[in-house]
């Protein structure tokens, strides 16, 4: 592929336009008044900034925001903690069958969620969690374990075993080695896992749609989709709502993009 320097940049800029043009329309439309959306071209800049879309969207999505934070934060903490425990055991306490146990857990990463959806609902009803925020916390924790275990297993593989041996010599037990030695050096791995889990859980739709039948636990993604049904063609409100829904994960991505890519590849390429 003999491409000139200029050719390379031209193609990269065309690709940039392809990836950014939906974002342009998202932002521009969200700042227009409804009348302007239908009187001017959708390509034009807003003639004056109109926040009414945001006001209406925020009113409709506020509870969803609270709900999403309420289950996302605990589920991130639990799944990252369990993944770190598992990753530690799989790499640093060598035991028979560790690889089998790893594959047993890893398999969950490729699970089509459709195949667990019906028993999931029945299970939550049986343990009286259906309609409770804990149903979403437990669900997102459970299905987050495979990826967090993988991330920490890859991370701990690169930690020298001599550190553990030194701890053993000092008479520390396994739990002390984990909390005193491993956790402090795990910060980069924790950041990767937290960002990945936060993005995934915040953006999730299917579990929210299935378990979030009550407005007091319904995630913001499901509420945005409902807004789409009730505000047909009110594109300023819908784009404002979409922007608000995307904001937490976009901010995390723009600040911590490096770690986001690591999480992405941690699950894709052997690290």
């Amino acid at each position, binding site marked *: 592929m003999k491409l000139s320097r200029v050719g*390379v940049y031209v193609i*990269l800029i065309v690709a940039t336009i392809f990836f950014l043009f939906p974002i342009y329309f998202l932002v521009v439309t969200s700042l227009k008044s409804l009348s302007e959306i239908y009187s001017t071209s959708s390509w034009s800049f807003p003639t004056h900034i109109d926040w009414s879309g945001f006001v209406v969207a925020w009113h409709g999505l506020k509870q969803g925001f609270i709900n999403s934070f309420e289950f996302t934060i605990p589920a991130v903490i639990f799944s990252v903690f369990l993944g770190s425990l598992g990753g530690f055991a799989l790499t640093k306490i060598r035991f028979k069958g560790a690889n089998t146990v790893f594959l047993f857990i890893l398999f969950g990463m490729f699970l089509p969620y459709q195949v667990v959806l019906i028993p999931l609902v029945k299970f939550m009803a049986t343990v009286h969690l259906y309609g409770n925020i804990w149903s979403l916390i437990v669900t997102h924790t459970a299905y987050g374990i495979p990826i967090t275990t993988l991330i920490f297993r890859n991370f701990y593989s690169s930690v020298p075993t001599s550190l553990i041996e030194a701890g053993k010599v000092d008479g520390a037990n396994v739990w002390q080695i984990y909390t005193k030695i491993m956790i402090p050096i795990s910060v980069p791995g924790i950041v990767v896992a937290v960002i990945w889990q936060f993005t995934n859980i915040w953006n999730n*739709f299917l579990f929210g749609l299935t378990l979030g039948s009550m407005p007091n636990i319904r995630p913001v993604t499901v509420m945005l989709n409902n807004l789409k049904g009730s505000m047909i063609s009110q594109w300023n409100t819908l784009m404002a709502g979409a922007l608000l829904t995307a904001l937490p994960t976009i901010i995390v991505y723009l600040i911590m993009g490096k770690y986001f890519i690591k999480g992405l590849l941690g699950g894709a390429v052997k690290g």
Partner: protein
Amino acid sequence: MNKRSFEWIGFILPSVIIVGTFVYAFIAWTVAVSFTNWNTLLPNWSFAGLSNYFSLFTNNLRFRMDLINNFTFLPFFVLGSMVLGFFLASLLNKGVKFESFFRTVFLLPMAISLVVSGTIWVWLYDPTNGAIDVLLKAIRLPTINWLGSMSFALPAIIIATIWQYTGFTTSIYLAGLRGIPQEIIEAAKLDGAHGFRLYWNIIIPMVQSSTVTAFVLMVQLSLQMFDIIWVMTSGGPAFATDMPAVYMFIAAFKQNFVAQGAAIAVIVFLLTLAVVIPYLFIAGKITEEES
């Protein structure tokens, strides 16, 4: 052997129990239900044999359309995202300026919920004042009611999905390309391999593991496609964009055809296994070799 050799149990047991329940036991439960007559509001565990599967494959037009749609969607999406991803990764690997800017932009859609991107794309495809039809009008081409059209709705969704996931394949390929030792490229160039031949004979074989990974992930995503379809078309118009995962949800949770929904879920699951099991087998082998 000292007492420490059992301490791993405390660390890994919680995860094993949770995954055992939420993954394996739940799968078994769904498989069991798919063999019953539970196509009613109230549970009915009477044995139905394979009848739920038979009816899906023999006299269910919707499911037949779902399979056709899914297997039309799959090659276009998988090939589209992989070819585009490889192409963009190759360009980024040429030591360009602002590389991290381009990477950040290409991967941005991956940080956004499919509900958000679906909503944006519905607006872009809007037939009255959507960005795409406005553009078509400006260059004097006939406008298209993208999502309302039997023939254009599925391609429209494929484009939106490629937009969402191409940054992912780009990242996978970029990591693969970065893993090729520079000496090999230089040696090949000295032997006269340039341009297309360099890519075909050297680079593409060297990123084979990236290709396998990207392929498995994209196929798996295709088979489970739900969110973006639910948000953009709900499977319409007239099931032109319906997929098994969408039908499964409707059957199980809206129509109370629980056993039928379970059967669809099992079929989606088996299709996924057909690509994931060989992949895990390969990955497992690599893991053993390393340890």
